[in-house]
């Protein structure tokens, strides 16, 4: 198989629009990726053909909607090589998935229990643990990030001890692009009896994920970065972990029986899906995964890497660009600073040239502190980006420089 980015790009209707009179070069997919027509069609088809509330339909539409929703669960399970669909919990996003684990799995944490995070975590994998620590008296330890943007593994090992209950690490950094050696880290965590949660928001998009091979207990990712819809995310949990966990929220769908005096809860994954589930979004997510799986994913990874290398090569000559994150194992995310200009300035000027990049803390303020900056600009590449996008970015950056010189 091979991969043709131009053919793939043509399937994303939004990418043909113009911004400020220029062709759009969308380099903010690490925040939210655009959607192929197949995803849009699947969601519209659900609404126009098979929509009803799920799990209670005696009627045809209810059955079709249920099949769509549970079919999506099976697709997700295969996508990350889970033991089965019973290990897949749908959430509204990765943030909710991590909150669910912190709240439910963390419920019996004791004062002095330890949670290991890293300096490169997104706030979504930081704040829920901070809240848990404040509630239970647990202590958070942080794995330091090296100058090149990798985790200090020796320091990580030194942090592990019998009090370590949870190791929660990002699989691929949304700022630095670093792909962390999470299988190795999970193995070390297991040795001290700690559970492992991986934030897979970026990695699930750009790598083949096998949750069982990774040796973790929980894996979280969102639909909207995976060329799917917003409003749906995935928590994978090992069956025995999920079974031992109390519910996160209460309501319909998650119960076995309810009387005025007593409630018994249903088994996972339904136990963690209180309320009416997102059937339209699930259909969209399934379509996104099916679409992605029909592509040559290793060719996509090579394509994204080539775009990154090309961009970096063109920037190398400039002595006023600082790059954040040059670990050997990294994805196509380029965080940078243009000397003499604020990231906000850079993003604003680039936008005028039709180039969409992100500027700010990227929801990773501790990482900004680590590198002594208040913000960075970030260009992130996805499968539909082309050499033209990369060149538009560097050309616009050359123009931006003249504004601030």
């Amino acid at each position: 198989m091979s991969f043709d980015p131009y053919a793939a790009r043509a399937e994303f209707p939004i990418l043909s629009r113009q911004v400020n009179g220029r062709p759009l070069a969308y380099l903010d997919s690490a925040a939210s990726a655009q959607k192929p027509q197949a995803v849009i069609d699947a969601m519209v088809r659900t609404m126009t053909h098979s929509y009803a509330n799920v799990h209670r339909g005696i009627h045809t539409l209810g059955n079709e909607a249920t099949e769509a929703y549970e079919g999506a669960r099976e697709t997700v399970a295969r996508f990350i090589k889970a033991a089965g669909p019973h290990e897949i919990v749908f959430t509204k996003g990765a943030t909710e998935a991590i909150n669910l684990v912190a709240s439910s799995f963390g419920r019996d944490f004791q004062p002095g229990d330890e949670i290991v995070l890293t300096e490169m975590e997104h706030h979504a994998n930081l704040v829920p643990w901070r809240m848990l620590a404040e509630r239970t008296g647990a202590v958070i330890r942080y794995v330091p990030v090296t100058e090149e943007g990798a985790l200090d593994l020796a320091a990580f090992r030194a942090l592990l001890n019998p009090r370590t209950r949870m190791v929660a690490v990002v699989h691929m950094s949304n700022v630095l692009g670093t792909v962390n050696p999470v299988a190795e880290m999970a193995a070390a965590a297991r040795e001290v009896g700690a559970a492992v949660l991986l934030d897979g928001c970026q990695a699930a998009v750009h790598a083949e994920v096998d949750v069982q091979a990774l040796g973790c207990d929980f894996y979280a990712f969102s639909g909207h970065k995976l060329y799917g819809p917003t409003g749906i995310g995935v928590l994978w949990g090992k069956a025995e972990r999920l079974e031992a966990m109390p519910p996160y929220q209460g309501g319909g769908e998650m119960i076995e029986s309810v009387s005025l005096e007593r409630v018994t809860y249903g088994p996972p994954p339904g136990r963690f899906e209180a309320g009416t589930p997102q059937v339209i979004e699930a259909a969209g997510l399934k379509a996104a995964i099916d679409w992605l799986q029909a592509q040559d994913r290793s060719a996509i990874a090579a394509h994204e890497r080539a775009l990154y290398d090309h961009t970096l090569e063109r920037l190398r000559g400039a002595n006023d660009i600082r790059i954040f994150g040059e670990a050997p194992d990294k994805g196509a995310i380029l965080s940078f600073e243009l000397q003499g200009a604020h990231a906000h300035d850079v993003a604003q000027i680039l936008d005028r040239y039709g180039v969409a990049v992100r500027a700010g803390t990227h929801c990773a303020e501790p990482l900004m502190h680590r590198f002594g900056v208040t913000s960075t600009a970030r260009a992130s590449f996805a499968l539909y980006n082309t050499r033209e996008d990369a060149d538009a970015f560097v050309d616009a950056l050359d123009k931006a420089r003249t504004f601030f010189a």
Partner: protein
Amino acid sequence: MTAAVLEHAPSPPEAALAELAEEFELLGDWEERYRHVIDLGRELQPLSPVERTDANKVRGCASQVWLVTEPQGDRLQFRGDSDAHIVRGLIAILLRLYSGRSPDQILNFDAKVAFAGLGLSGALSTQRSNGLNAMLARIRADAERLAEN
């Protein structure tokens, strides 16, 4: 400031806007307008580090924005700053419109319309990344407070 000066009504924001409009009229495309905004920011007197306090900070996301309010008699003087060039320039415009005005003048002036008239309509978008809206809200709140006293 002498009593004689205070007796005169301060020149209204509309006069400052007319001046700005004249400046911007001479400029061509967006590049020239942005360059001018950046120049206005460069001319803005920066706040001293001791004034860049959390209390004076206006919540933004991508860039940091500070505002110092100094009541002088029946009017309000504002000084502001940002760590981003374009935002600084936009602040300079905002201050030319609002600083040295009476609470009434401040509360009756619509900055959104003014910015749009200068061809800078995106500047006061609802996006939180740009602290300008928050700065404007604080300017208006300070004016309301002075008007009540």
